[in-house]
């Protein structure tokens, strides 16, 4: 069955509501401002509106209420809206949810999902374009899931709502909504914490997640067609847990690495991967790796300025050719 990313999200929400009465939606604007995609939520609204709570613009307390309800037996998903708004809720997400299992010595756990649409979405400007996965990765106790394809949008979100026993920040990118994947109903899902090889290759590894997954795939296609280069694309799927093993295996195979990520360069997701490769896979490298990431500047409004900073397929191709010594 072929589905889009947005369909995957809506399907995960609907099926989770149907499967478990403890699933409750604290906010339900999963599709953001995308009016077409919003229609996909209509079946859930029709059948389960009693489990969709009215939400004042109170991100901090909504996040906290999700945690509290989760600790006391519910399985809430808190829709924080635009990813940048997680800052409004940060005290509860980073300092309560993440710590509860640990500081209670394992007595309590908080299986709450914080959902948001994050990333450089086009004219979001500085305050609506934040990508927070790198800084959230600095908070032990939080799972950070970043689907880059429709298959994972569906399976990872459904897993969060039905199976996860830990607090999760689920970071979607609104520019992924129309991406499509095949989902085989009888195939078990790839475990959470395992990266997905989106494309096999032998010449170089492109490590990507979220929006950089389709861009890395596009770059790999260009590299193949125009340059005769076989690039492997590793889709991380989750920043926490980070699948270091699959990254290192791919690097061992190819010896050359481009890391494509939409976080800022310094202290970012790409920085962590580069450090991992330096520590544990240095001998595999036949050339220095390159990070294709966003410069350490806020995101500007004006389109050409935003494009200047965007991680594009062209930038990934250029980096790949440089790593390959072309």
């Amino acid at each position: 069955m072929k589905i889009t990313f947005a369909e995957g999200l809506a399907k995960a929400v609907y099926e989770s509501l149907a499967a478990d009465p403890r699933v409750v939606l604290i906010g339900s604007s999963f599709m953001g401002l995308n009016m077409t995609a919003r229609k996909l939520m209509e079946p859930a609204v029709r059948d389960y509106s009693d489990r969709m709570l009215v939400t004042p613009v109170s991100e901090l307390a909504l996040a906290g209420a999700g945690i509290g309800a989760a600790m006391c037996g519910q399985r809430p998903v808190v829709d924080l809206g635009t990813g940048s708004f997680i800052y409004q809720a940060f005290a509860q997400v980073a300092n309560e949810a993440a710590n509860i299992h640990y500081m209670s010595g394992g007595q309590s756990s908080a299986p709450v999902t914080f959902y948001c649409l994050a990333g450089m979405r086009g004219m979001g400007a500085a305050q609506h374009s934040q990508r927070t996965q790198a800084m959230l990765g600095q908070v032990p106790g939080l799972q950070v899931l970043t689907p880059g394809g429709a298959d994972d949008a569906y399976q990872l979100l459904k897993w969060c709502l039905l199976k996860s026993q830990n607090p999760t920040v689920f970071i979607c990118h609104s520019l992924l909504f129309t991406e499509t994947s095949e989902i085989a109903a009888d195939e078990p899902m790839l475990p959470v914490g395992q990266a997905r090889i989106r494309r096999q290759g032998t010449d170089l590894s492109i490590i990507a997640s979220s929006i950089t997954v389709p861009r890395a795939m596009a770059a790999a296609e260009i590299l193949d067609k125009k340059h005769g280069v076989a690039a492997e694309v590793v889709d991380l799927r989750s920043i926490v847990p980070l699948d270091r093993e699959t990254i290192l295996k791919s690097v061992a195979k190819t010896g050359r690495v481009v890391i494509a990520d939409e976080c800022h360069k310094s202290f970012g997701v790409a920085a962590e991967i580069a450090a991992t490769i330096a520590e544990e896979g240095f001998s595999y490298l036949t050339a220095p790796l390159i990070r294709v990431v966003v410069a350490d500047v806020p995101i500007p409004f004006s389109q050409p300025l935003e494009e200047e900073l965007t991680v594009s397929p062209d930038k990934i191709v250029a980096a790949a050719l440089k790593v390959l010594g072309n």
Partner: protein
Amino acid sequence: MSAAGLQQLQEMLKIRRFEEQCIALARADKLPGHYHVYIGQEATAVAACAALAPEDFIFSTWRNHGHLLARGASPVKMLAEILGRSGGYASGKSGTLHLSAGELGVPSTSALVGGSLPLATGAALACKRSGKGIAVAFFGDAALEEGAFYESMIIAQVWQVPILFICENNSIPPKERKRGQYTSSTLPAERLGDVPQALQVPSEAVDGTDVAAMNECFARLTAEVRGGGGPRFVEVCCSRWPGNIMTWPELPGGEWQIDWAFGGKPDHEGMATWLESDPLQRYLKKLVAAGTLDRAQVEAMDAAVLKEIAGAAKLALESPFPPASDAYRHVFAAQEARL
């Protein structure tokens, strides 16, 4: 009244002696780190917890010892936790700041001002959805200075969840309260309850030194909340115990003496004045005046409490520290990695 009254007296006394034990352990360099004690507020926790059922949840703050003891927590496991030992409720991970006891409906304690309020509101949502129990949030007056308070009031009211917000205003006695003082609320409101009242959350105030008034108040408010009436807010007017005014708790005039309730005076002026606002002493005097118990019975009760707490401290000190490998445990709860 007398059996229940005696039990409440005993519980208050136990909290008082437990906190004095903490101060003694800290002075002996056995309790590392900063800590906060509940002396002078014992009646609030005891009266509030008397109105609760086993399925209810309570949420507290860094000043949580009294709430847990009143909920029935083990002094041994509490002290072991406060000392960072493996025998503690969280095997040494929480210390005093985040004391929790899952089996008593104390799932997590935030040491951030206002931090527990959203959590408690969410617990109340879970209660509403499961049709079982209510949530009680204990917090200080400073929590009203946090956005978390305001947001929690809004969603508790909009969702009509079963929660009782108990604000223990332990500022300097109301008449003497000076705005801007380090230890007191700087909230520019005449009455704390005006803030939730503006959001349609029914609010009232009660004297935190009057056990009978609080028993009546909490029984009535928890019944309203349990009956589906939505959230309630109550300001408990306490007077800050002089030992809590310094950065680290101290015992002005030494440990509390039964004799102070029978005409004796502490050798500390601030303490002597404050004793008029001491809920424990007030309640004790009331019970003695009513003939419920006499001095000899008070002394016997106190001796038993002191013995229990001393025994708890001994066991807590005997509990080993956790192994270093424990630092890596409990970051994540166990789970299946796929659907």
